[in-house]
């Protein structure tokens, strides 16, 4: 191919440089936040005049932060479970099903990925208010599940496409009922897709802020909402510490997902 990476000569260097620049541009703010969370300046001066763990101590001493983190984790975990369950059923329909409108259904299930979040947030806010689900855990989980579904369906459907249905048929000839064959043979065979789906839908909820702002109530706040709210009240390095933890968990889960994929590829 004309644009084969190995045959691009000096362009290769240019491309590499440009990519590095973009990556730096995207990552630097995050690096700043993490550095500031360890800096001793209350006014977030950079470079920090000294280093300290004070802000983290303050963070853990304040029960409202911990509560927000637990709320986030609970909602993200429930979202992940629900998204994986629905994602599994949807993937079987999309990959194995032969029915009219299958492509339309696929498009519909994946739209939350491209739909402007704020539009979705306003719509579901109005809708849930009427149903009395605003500010409830169920409301949060349902709204986040809609957003997380594409991230659950894509890895599961991909894994299912790569799984030869004859293997499931073989299990059935061996005497397993169709359900048994799916539970004992098909699901374990596509487990890597299921794990990825769980991690990505957890993250889709964990760091989601727009819908969460609309859904939150004074008594039910996720971590991103709490960060957002505190930010508007006063600019304290504690927020940097909370943000660093948020990023830290996200990063850890992404690494787990990447390792899983590498392990199962070989």
């Amino acid at each position, binding site marked *: 191919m004309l644009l084969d990476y190995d045959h691009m000569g000096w362009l290769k260097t240019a491309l590499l440089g440009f990519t590095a620049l973009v990556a730096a541009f995207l990552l630097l703010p995050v690096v700043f936040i993490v550095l500031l969370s360890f800096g001793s300046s209350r006014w977030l001066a950079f470079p920090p005049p000294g280093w300290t763990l004070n802000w983290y101590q303050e963070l853990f001493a304040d029960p409202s932060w911990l509560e927000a983190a637990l709320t986030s984790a609970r909602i993200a975990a429930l979202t992940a479970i629900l998204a994986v369950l629905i994602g599994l059923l949807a993937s079987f329909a999309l990959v194995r099903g032969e029915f009219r409108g299958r492509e339309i259904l696929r498009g519909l299930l994946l739209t939350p990925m491209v739909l402007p979040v704020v539009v979705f947030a306003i719509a579901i806010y109005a809708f849930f208010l009427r149903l009395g689900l605003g500010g409830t855990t169920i409301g949060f989980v349902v709204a986040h599940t809609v957003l997380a579904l594409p991230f659950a369906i894509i890895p599961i459907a991909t894994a299912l496409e790569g799984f*030869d249905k*004859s293997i499931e048929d*073989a299990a*059935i*000839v061996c*005497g*397993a009922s169709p359900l048994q064959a799916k539970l004992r043979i098909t699901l374990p*065979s596509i487990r890597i897709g299921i794990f990825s789906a769980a991690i990505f839908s957890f993250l889709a909820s964990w760091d989601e802020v727009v819908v969460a702002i609309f859904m939150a109530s004074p008594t039910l706040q996720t971590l991103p909402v709490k960060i957002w709210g505190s930010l508007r009240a006063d600019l304290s390095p504690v927020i940097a510490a909370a943000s660093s933890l948020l990023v830290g968990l996200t990063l850890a889960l992404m690494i787990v997902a990447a390792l899983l994929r590498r392990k199962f590829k070989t």
Partner: protein
Amino acid sequence: MTQPFLSIRKLRKAFGAFTAVHDVTLDIPKGEFLTFLGPSGSGKSTTLYAIVGFQDPSSGDVLLQGKSLLAVPSHKRNIGMVFQRYTLFPHLSVAENVAFPLRVRRRPDAEVKKKVADMLGLVRLESFAERLPGALSGGQQQRVALARALAYDPPILLMDEPLSALDKKLREEIQAEIRRIHRETGVTILYVTHDQEEALHLSDRIALFKDGRIEQTGTGEDLYLRPATDFVAGFIGNSNFLAAEHLETVGGAATIRLADGSLVSGISANGSFERGQKTRLMIRPEAFRLERNPASAELTVDVVDVAFYGERRRIVARTTTGQEIDIRPTSAAMASQDATPSRRQVFFDPGAAFLFPA
């Protein structure tokens, strides 16, 4: 009449307007090794799938020991099957794969263990018990699949081109294994292939499929020596077809006139022909002789090319009317100095030639 073990009655399967299987009827005695042979798309797999229950026939019936299987769901038919594709469960060890059908049947642990050992012994893979399928060669995977399919002592074993993904040498090796396992277990086998040699090596009987119908059922010898139709003659073994005009048939022996004007009598006629009807005469390449004998008919040909094929030579020749024919005399029957292009007579036994409608 005694009841056949497995009986396929007037089986028909249509996909929309397209009929993949028309009216297939077959009786299979217990312990037989029967092969479905036929070109791609001739309905072999569809027939097999109706037996195992992956596809519901449009009409007709499948009976095992007199009882219809159609109302029984696939997982309760207790049939063994080896697929064309590798279908071992990727996350289970070889031993657990073989144990799977016994575990879903909730057999006691001790029995499962013993049966797994027996089965792995049968396919000679005892030392691979703890491996995952990904760490086996294609041939080993199919042997494990065979062990898994036999672990629950199914009355019938179905195999849908189990060896087609393997190379020739491995294929022959596993063919020998399959023959031995058939002998040792006495299981009734329905085997699908489009490889005629494989069918001839393995089977007690062959059902030759064409366009969703069975063209002929019989032993390999029946199909080779007594083909019922020109399709069978052309599909099994090699064959030459010569244009001929039918003159008369007396007591099953036909007299014909070949395109070069020569008369041949004593041909085995399949069916009855009119006087003057256009027909095709089939002669196997191996049926040609280079020496005359009292009963033989003769044909004048121009030798175009001679090649040495080990046991036999292959002569490409042309009749005086320009039709190319293939002749395979044994190498011993022809000295190599004869191998020069020239006009000569070749001979054949009219009883080993067959007449079919054109």
